[in-house]
């Protein structure tokens, strides 16, 4: 059932088994899991079915950091506050986290995740269905053809790995009818949660306070509550729910909001591949399987390289160079000759694919930093909720990672005679042509120890009996894969656990 708060009576109390705050990938993924389960579920979506400027404005706040400037509009522009959440603007790149992302790594996240990749593998399979990608074949058959179509052999320092590309699935429109048909589900739009109410000692959630921009308010009471409002908003809700626990719900250790992460990305330069017939095809989108599903190859430094160089993970994305730029690049490369001396360089050669130019982007796993954080400001939004201050700092280690990976790739291309690379990175300019990925993570990090994390390995908020968190905010380390598939996998795992718990 799909409802709008305006269809409810002001002050009405809704009761259910499970209340899910947010109808993005995690919220909708969980709700679909409960469809037809017999358990009553309420999903509270802050926005409507389409983008609305007034609703989106509720996201604005103060922002600062290494890359983010006061006029970056990061808080408002990097997420979407309506049915489907950030799947309304994602590009559909899906890839499980690499196994080592879960491991303790002294140079990134000394404690690791409290769960491992194997815990998520069954859920990745199911998540792939929701994202409408091919079931992930973890041993891609293409990788069994070493040195055939890839830039490097599997033993090289850079390995080819794949993203599967979702259409991209817009979860709101795509699953609206499925949700509406399920008699045990109520998806309520324009329903902004403004307060998580608790008992006197903040050990249990008693209800959710919900408001619409039109002024109508309802309350939702459930046996279990899940925050699935996004990597930033989950923390905001906990911090703002401070009527009993003054520092914010679940925040007795001052961890809520800290360790904010996104994936920094730089334009690292461009490469000239000397053997294009066996190299670049797989690094642009190509079709796999019988359902016309798409995939795309990327490069990443091997785990051995990451350990040797003490580097966080990273990915190298190769982009076709815009045709308008080709003649200029061709002239430059022709002039330089390098190891391309005997290749014909020029527009004819490019057309015949004797040589291929590719733009090089490096995307990096950020090093978790407690000083990267969201905090409440004194300014209130139209619903009376404190606006946020987001500060995202990147360290010298983050800059070194990006620079080192670009240089390692340039060297590897050269000495393996695969091509050459023009670099746009240097120590003098630590963040050249840098940007971000809109992958919010880390603000309610997962850790078995309540002193070091906000939620436990089962995503339950430490110290609160009936409150869980889903979404990228629980990542203790962000890995380097785009997060949606992992967010879905974690949400489905949580749904399984909650169903068992609610039935018992």
């Amino acid at each position, binding site marked *: 059932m799909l409802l709008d708060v305006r269809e409810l009576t002001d002050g009405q109390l809704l009761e259910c088994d499970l209340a899910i705050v947010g109808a993005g990938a995690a919220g909708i993924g969980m709700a679909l899991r409960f469809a037809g389960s017999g358990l009553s579920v309420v999903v509270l979506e802050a926005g409507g079915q389409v983008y609305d400027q007034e609703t989106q404005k509720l996201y604005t706040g103060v922002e600062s950091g290494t890359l983010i400037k006061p006029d970056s509009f990061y808080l408002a522009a990097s997420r979407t506050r309506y049915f489907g959440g950030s799947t309304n603007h994602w590009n559909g790149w899906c890839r499980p986290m690499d196994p080592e992302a879960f491991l303790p790594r002294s140079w990134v996240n000394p404690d690791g995740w409290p769960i491992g990749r194997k815990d998520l593998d069954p859920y990745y399979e199911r998540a792939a269905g929701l994202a409408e990608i091919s079931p992930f074949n973890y041993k891609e058959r293409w990788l069994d053809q070493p040195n055939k179509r890839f830039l490097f052999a599997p033993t090289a320092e850079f390995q080819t790995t794949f993203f599967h590309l979702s259409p991209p699935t817009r979860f709101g429109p795509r699953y609206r009818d499925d949700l509406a048909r399920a008699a045990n589900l109520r998806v309520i739009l324009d329903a902004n949660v403004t307060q998580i109410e608790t008992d006197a000692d903040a050990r249990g959630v008693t209800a959710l306070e919900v408001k619409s921009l039109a002024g109508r308010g309802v309350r939702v009471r459930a046996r279990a509550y899940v925050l699935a409002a996004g990597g930033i908003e989950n923390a905001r809700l906990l911090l703002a729910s401070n009527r009993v626990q003054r520092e914010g719900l679940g925040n007795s250790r001052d961890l809520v909001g800290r360790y904010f992460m996104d994936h920094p990305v730089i334009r690292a330069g461009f490469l000239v591949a000397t053997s294009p017939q066996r190299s670049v095809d797989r690094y642009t989108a190509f079709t796999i399987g019988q359902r016309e599903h798409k995939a795309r190859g990327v490069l990443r430094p091997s785990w051995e390289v990451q350990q040797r160089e003490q580097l966080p993970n990273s990915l190298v994305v190769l982009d076709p160079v815009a045709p308008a730029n080709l003649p200029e690049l061709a002239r430059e490369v022709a002039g330089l*000759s390098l*190891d391309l*001396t005997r290749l014909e360089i020029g527009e004819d050669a490019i057309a015949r694919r004797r040589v291929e130019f590719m733009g090089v982007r490096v995307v990096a796993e950020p090093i978790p930093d407690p000083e990267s954080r969201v905090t409440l400001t004194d300014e209130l939004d139209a619903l009376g909720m404190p606006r946020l201050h987001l500060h995202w700092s990147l360290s010298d280690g983050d800059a070194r990672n990006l620079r080192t990976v670009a*240089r390692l790739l340039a*060297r590897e291309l050269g000495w393996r*005679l695969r091509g050459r690379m*023009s670099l746009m990175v240097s120590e003098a300019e630590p963040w050249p042509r840098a940007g971000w990925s809109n992958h919010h993570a880390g603000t309610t990090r997962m850790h078995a120890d309540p002193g070091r994390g906000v939620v436990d390995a089962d995503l339950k908020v430490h110290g609160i009996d009936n409150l869980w968190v889903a979404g990228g905010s629980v990542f203790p380390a962000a890995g380097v894969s785009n997060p949606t598939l992992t967010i879905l996998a974690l949400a489905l795992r949580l749904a399984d656990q909650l169903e068992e718990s609610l039935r018992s």
Partner: protein
Amino acid sequence: MTETPLTRRRFVATSLALAGLAALGPVGCAPSWDRRRAARDLAGIADQAEAWSEVGREYLAAYPDEKGLGAITVALVADLGWKPWLPEAEAFPAATSEAAGEEGAGTPGEGAGTPGEVAVPRTLARQLHDRIVDELRTDVTVQVHDWLLSRTEARVAALVALIGPESLTATP
């Protein structure tokens, strides 16, 4: 074009520059080196000498200590077992007419080791090529003109700048 007297030092430098540029080509070219092919390749290289010269000038600006034909030549050959400061016969064993003939090298001109002629011995090109690959692998690199180059590559470019790109196209 003004003719410049080809001193021994200049001859060595030009040989190195040509061999170095040749070494930048695919490794597979060296074993099948022959006069005709070399002439064709060198003509291609010469077309690009001006661009290399630009890279070389940038390198020399960054490393002024090497801004001299002697310094850069010694730097290039030091690890290759060549001794340009010795008498010619001892200094460049692979660049004698006989050796050049065996190697199938030498263009333009009839032989090597005679003023006015330029030799590109296969061994030198191969040695330089191997060194370039090794430097890229072990990070003996410099960033010039945005390109990540092996130090030897950059020095070859510097040589081209120092001897003048026109030297690579000059007909004896």
